[in-house]
């Protein structure tokens, strides 16, 4: 027993209350602010409108194109982005900050600027663009162009996710593997990659989801062939809000599907860790 008198704590009841109020209200507000518009949109079209839209060949083609081009972009990210993610996770080198900044840049550049920049590079007024055109590669208004744009905007999401995954593989495992005789390549494929495969899958889905949502850059590079967001924009400007809502609903549902996948995968990833 201490010799000091036992004074009851001056529990700050009022500030505690205000604190709780702040936490509760802002949580509710934020969740409502995200959920309500989406829910309202899903509830807007009638069943007939929805069915009609689902039978509309233009809509189906554009959604298909969106998914196809996004998938292509995420495969590109897997092949070309994985080594960079690994290097960023494991090495320190002069200028690393600059490289990391460069990787994140596509998130921050206004989307139409991304389109403009890609068109500028591929335009006939510079040598690279002329080489491309001579090789028959056309960016403007082509699926190649769309894929390039989607790869550009989706890449940071892939690289950052996978870099994180690589960082979570303890370096000590690689050290032990090296000391046991496995070279850098064997260590990468036998130890690092298997332990990171789920991160890579999550990264691909992130990249694909981001690519699916892109509009501003695509609309500049390729209005036609229309990807789904462009189609929706066209319907909105040509026919108005209520005509565009059924398409919006379809896109929301496609996003939710990816989302669900993502959550299931990243959940089990955490459970494994």
């Amino acid at each position, binding site marked *: 027993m201490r010799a000091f008198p036992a004074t009851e704590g001056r529990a700050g009841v009022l500030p505690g209350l205000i604190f709780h109020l702040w936490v509760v209200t802002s949580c509710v507000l934020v969740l409502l602010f995200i959920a309500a518009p989406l829910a309202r949109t899903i509830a807007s079209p009638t069943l007939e409108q929805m069915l009609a839209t689902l039978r509309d060949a233009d809509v189906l083609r554009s959604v298909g194109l969106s998914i196809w081009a996004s998938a292509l972009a995420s495969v590109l990210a897997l092949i070309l982005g994985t080594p960079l993610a690994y290097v960023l996770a494991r090495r320190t080198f002069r200028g690393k900050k600059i490289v990391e900044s460069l990787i994140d840049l596509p998130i921050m550049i206004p989307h139409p600027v991304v389109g403009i920049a890609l068109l500028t590079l591929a335009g006939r007024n510079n040598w690279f663009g002329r080489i491309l055109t001579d090789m028959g590669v056309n960016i403007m208004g082509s699926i190649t162009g769309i894929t390039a744009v989607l790869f550009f905007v989706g890449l940071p999401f892939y690289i950052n996710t996978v870099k994180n995954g690589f960082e979570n593989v303890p370096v*000590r495992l690689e050290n032990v593997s*090296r*000391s*046991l*005789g*496995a070279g850098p390549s064997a260590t990468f494929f036998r130890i690092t990659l298997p332990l990171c495969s789920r991160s890579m899958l999550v990264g691909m889905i992130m990249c694909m989801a981001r690519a699916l949502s892109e509009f501003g850059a695509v609309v500049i590079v390729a209005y036609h062939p229309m990807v789904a967001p462009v189609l929706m924009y066209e319907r909105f400007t040509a026919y108005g809000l209520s005509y565009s809502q059924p398409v919006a609903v379809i896109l929301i549902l496609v996003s939710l599907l990816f989302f669900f996948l993502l959550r299931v995968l990243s959940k089990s990833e955490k459970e494994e860790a």
Partner: protein
Amino acid sequence: MIRVSGLSLRLGDFALQDVSLHVRPGEFFALMGPTGSGKTVVLESIAGLIQWQRGEIHIAGRDVTALPPERRRVSLVYQDHALFPHLTVLENVIFGQRYHGISPADGLREANELLDRLGLSRLCGRTPENLSGGEKQRVALARALACRPNVVLLDEPLSSLDPQFRDDLRSALKTLHMQMNLTVLMVTHDFVDALSLASRAAVIRGGRMEQVGQIDEIFRQPRSTFVAAFVGMKNVFRVTSPGLCELGNGVGFAVPDAAHGAMALRPEDVFVTRNPDLPGNWICLPAKIRSVRHEGFSWFTEAVCGHAVITAALDRQCLMAGGLEPGSPVWLGFTPERLHLVPDGSDETG
């Protein structure tokens, strides 16, 4: 087997300065030092995992300075065992064999032998997450040995274990070392582990070697007060005049004329008796008990002797005989050989 000469490197604030050591074939060598002294850096340099700026490392007669880790034939065992979580115990153990020209059949046989020897046979098909701490560490050991390394490097192999498992693994290590004639370099911050396992050792501090030698020599004859404190040599007597350590109140003892600095003495080397019935050549000092305390199963007394306080270990017989109440007069005895000269007795650390 391992010869490190003049190793120097700089990592942020930390620097390794001109570290040299030599581990002989078949030897169990302990590199001791407090946290942050650079012992793991030395280990990782030998394994080739860290770039160093100056110095050379030879392993099994080859200059490995320019070789990547996978060509050095040294196996590493980390404190946190670092088992590959996606492989079974057996897959972990055979992981490295293919890179050392060991045929799968031979490899499997040897792996099974090792697992058997370490009492892990029944765990072959399990994944690491289901193992206890002691089992994981033994699997890591088996994995390190399965690819026939020239040297095994152990990074604090015991310190992550509960005391119960620690004893078991310590015996396992000792047995393996003797039976397989392994060359082992172990890093540890715990001098008890070093004392139990190693035959030679070194003490490192702030990136510099403080002392290298036989383990007994380090424990009996620390060359600095830092090493003395590190190995638990609690009694340090200043040499007051040539040939004499005075403790005040007319108590004192003779030391060799050439000695200056300080004399250090382990509590375990001081005997406490009620009658001065010790051999004739012993130093025998009158003292008064100040306190008796136990640390774990060992009992110690602090006794006032002149103006000095001497810590001494107590034997069970002595405890049972009684008469150790505070204030009781006793005799403290020790042989002059146990008294060790610490040349840099003026060092700031205590």
